[in-house]
Each structure stands twice: as structure tokens, then as C-alpha cells.
């Protein structure tokens, strides 16, 4: 699972109000190279929850992202170093083994082979 998906996922248990962001417990992280597409990154940038992304990237061992959300001008500047970093964090880091933890209830969603198991028990629906 990549951080782009982690950034969209929230805990779906009934009654949970702050199910976002899920904390990442890292077991194994792998990297896969993906084609760089600046347009897509600009498109997604507005939807990304920056703080969650930085935290997620840190927990996966990638610390190049700035703490505060940069303003949108960086996206259009000629220097694409920022976009490259964003690209790497969003699309190339994969959480292969580990778990996602709900920040409110502490419920663990195990991740194996890169697939998070988001199935809820009957009493959580």
C-alpha cells in the first residue's frame, strides 16, 4: 500500500469520529519505481492531508518532506525537486508488511503482502 492510499483511508468503525489518519506500524517497506507525472501530482496536491503524509512518510523512514505544507506556488516553479520528493513519498513507497492503527480506538488493521485488511467485525459495523 502506498502513502497516497494511506492518505485517503480512514477508520470506518461505527461511532469513530476521528478515524484519520491511521498510524502506520512498519514491518517492511519496499520501493517500486513509478513514472513521474507532474500533472497528476499537482492535481492530487490539493486533496492531500499534508500532516498525515509527512507523518506517514517519516514512519516509513523518508524524512525529506518539509514539516509545513508548502504553498501552491512551489508546484508551478521550474524546479521540480519538490515534486520529485512528493512523487517518491506518494507513489513509490510501499508498506509491504505491518499494520494500520486507528487513532481513536487503537484497532489494528493488519497489512500483509501490501494489502491492508480493512474488514470489520460484525460488532464494529
Amino acid at each position, binding site marked *: *500500500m*502506498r502513502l*497516497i*492510499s494511506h*492518505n*485517503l*483511508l*480512514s*477508520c*470506518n468503525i461505527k461511532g469513530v469520529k476521528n*478515524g*484519520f489518519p491511521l498510524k502506520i506500524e512498519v514491518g517492511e517497506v519496499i520501493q517500486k519505481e*513509478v513514472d513521474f*507525472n507532474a*500533472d*497528476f501530482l499537482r*492535481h*492530487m496536491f490539493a*486533496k492531500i*492531508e499534508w500532516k498525515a503524509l509527512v507523518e506517514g512518510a517519516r514512519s516509513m523512514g523518508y524524512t525529506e518532506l518539509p514539516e509545513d505544507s508548502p504553498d501552491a506556488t512551489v508546484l508551478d516553479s521550474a524546479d521540480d525537486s519538490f515534486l520529485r520528493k512528493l512523487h517518491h513519498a506518494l*507513489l513509490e513507497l510501499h508498506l509491504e508488511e505491518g499494520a494500520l492503527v486507528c487513532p481513536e480506538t487503537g484497532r489494528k488493521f493488519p497489512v500483509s*503482502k*501490501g*494489502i*491492508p*485488511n*480493512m*474488514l*470489520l467485525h*460484525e460488532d464494529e*459495523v
Partner: protein
Amino acid sequence: MSSRPELLAPPEIFYDESEARKYTSSSRIVEIQARLSERALELLALPDDGVPRFLLDIGCGSGLSGETLSENGHQWIGLDISASMLNVAVEREVEGDLLLGDMGQGLGLRAGVIDGAISISAVQWLCNADKSSHEPRLRLKAFFGSLYRCLSRGARAVFQVYPENIAQRELILRQALQAGFGGGLVVDYPHSTKKRKEFLVLTCGSVPTSINEGYKESCSEDDDSEDEENGMVGVSDRNRPRKKQRTNKKGKGREWVLRKKEQSRRKGNDVPHDSKYTARKRKSRF
């Protein structure tokens, strides 16, 4: 389809290791899936600006439909309830992210982040109650409600569905509309039993300007040319005018009766002869 898989077992059990492998190694299924997802993507009507979008594939299975999305340059995230199918997807090294989840429990996604959703032959599974705790209506409601939230405004969701009967189709459509979606059903090849495909096209937030037309029937079996121009429209939307009742107060009229009698005669049925009394109403005190 000789038998409906929905009736055999719940999805997470039906699509076990062997079924998942069978599903993905059948070139016929692969081809159908590819064609359906191509069509679904077309119905999504994403803006044609070359920017890849972030799409959701509900019931992605082994990632056959996701592959079509990748081929068109989009990023996607797939959800499925069958772990075996997802394992096959991992083996096939699909490009999207995969989630093991139950769509009937609602999608745990943040609001307004998804640019479009497709689902190939999956939503009809929600109409079955596989566990005692399952209530199809509530599961559909949870699914459509959470989907509505996570789609961005103006985004579309296209579901290819195989409803078992009219009641199921109505149920799915009604739940979708109750969740706030606009849109309706697009039927490709409405007169063919085998080729007939139904797509539920839903829009989120804004009223659709136009829903694409369903493909028309092609006359010969091998002719797969799908031209849109003289397509057959099969749209039933929220405001569809009810079929006008042709009968008025006086009944269907003498001409109609004579025509029907003639038709029946041609079939060789035994039909009373025409007289001046034909198609007259009986007196009320009769």
C-alpha cells in the same frame, strides 16, 4: 451465464484459491472484463485534459479492470472482499493499491478525494444476505452513502451490474438515488440476452448534462462495431416520464380491437367474426 455465482456462496468463499485462478486464466473472462471496464471508463467521462485521475475500483478482484485503468494512465485503488482474488492481483503485479474490505460495510475513505469510481459485476452481490446480520437494503445504503461522501463534486461512478430481476435493479437504483446521487441506467444491447449489459451511471453533486447512450444492437453476431450515432438509448433516470397509458375512458377503441382480432386470426386462432357489436361496451346494468 448458466448459474449465478451470487446464489452459490458468499463472495469471499465463492472466489477461493481455485476459482480466483480460474477466473483470471480464462481468456474469455479477461476479454469481457477488459471490454466492460473500457466501457465503464468511457461512461465516467473524465475530463479530457491528459491529467491522470485517482479512481476507485470497487470489487476489483484480480485487478483485470484496474489494468484497463492503468493502461489509460490513471492511478487507482481497488477494493475487494476476496483475499484469494487479491492474492492473484498481487501476483499479476497490478499497479494500483489493493484493499481487503467489504463494500457493504461502507468505504472508509476521506470525503471528496476520489475522482471517479468504477465497479464491474460486483454491486449485485450486495443484494444477497449471506450472514444473519446482513440486510441488503442497509448494506446498499452504507455503500452508496460512503461512496457519495468520498467522491469529489461532479465526479461519476459507473457500475456494471447483473441484477437478478427487476426488484433488484429497482432496489439498487433507489438506494443510489436516496444517497444523493443523480443519474440512471445505461443499457447496452438491450435486446440481446447474452450481450445485454447494464451500467448504472451515477453523478455526485451536479446534474449530469447528458448521459451517454447505450450501444445499439448489432445485427450480425460477429459484427462488434459499436457506433454511437444510431445508438439505442436505454436511460431510466429519476424523472423518467411514466409510460403513457394508451387507454382512455372509452377503452381501446374499435380499430384496436379489429386489429388485434386480425392479428389473432393470422395466427390461426379461433376468433369470433366482426359485426356491428364488435368492441361495443356492455350496458352498465348488464
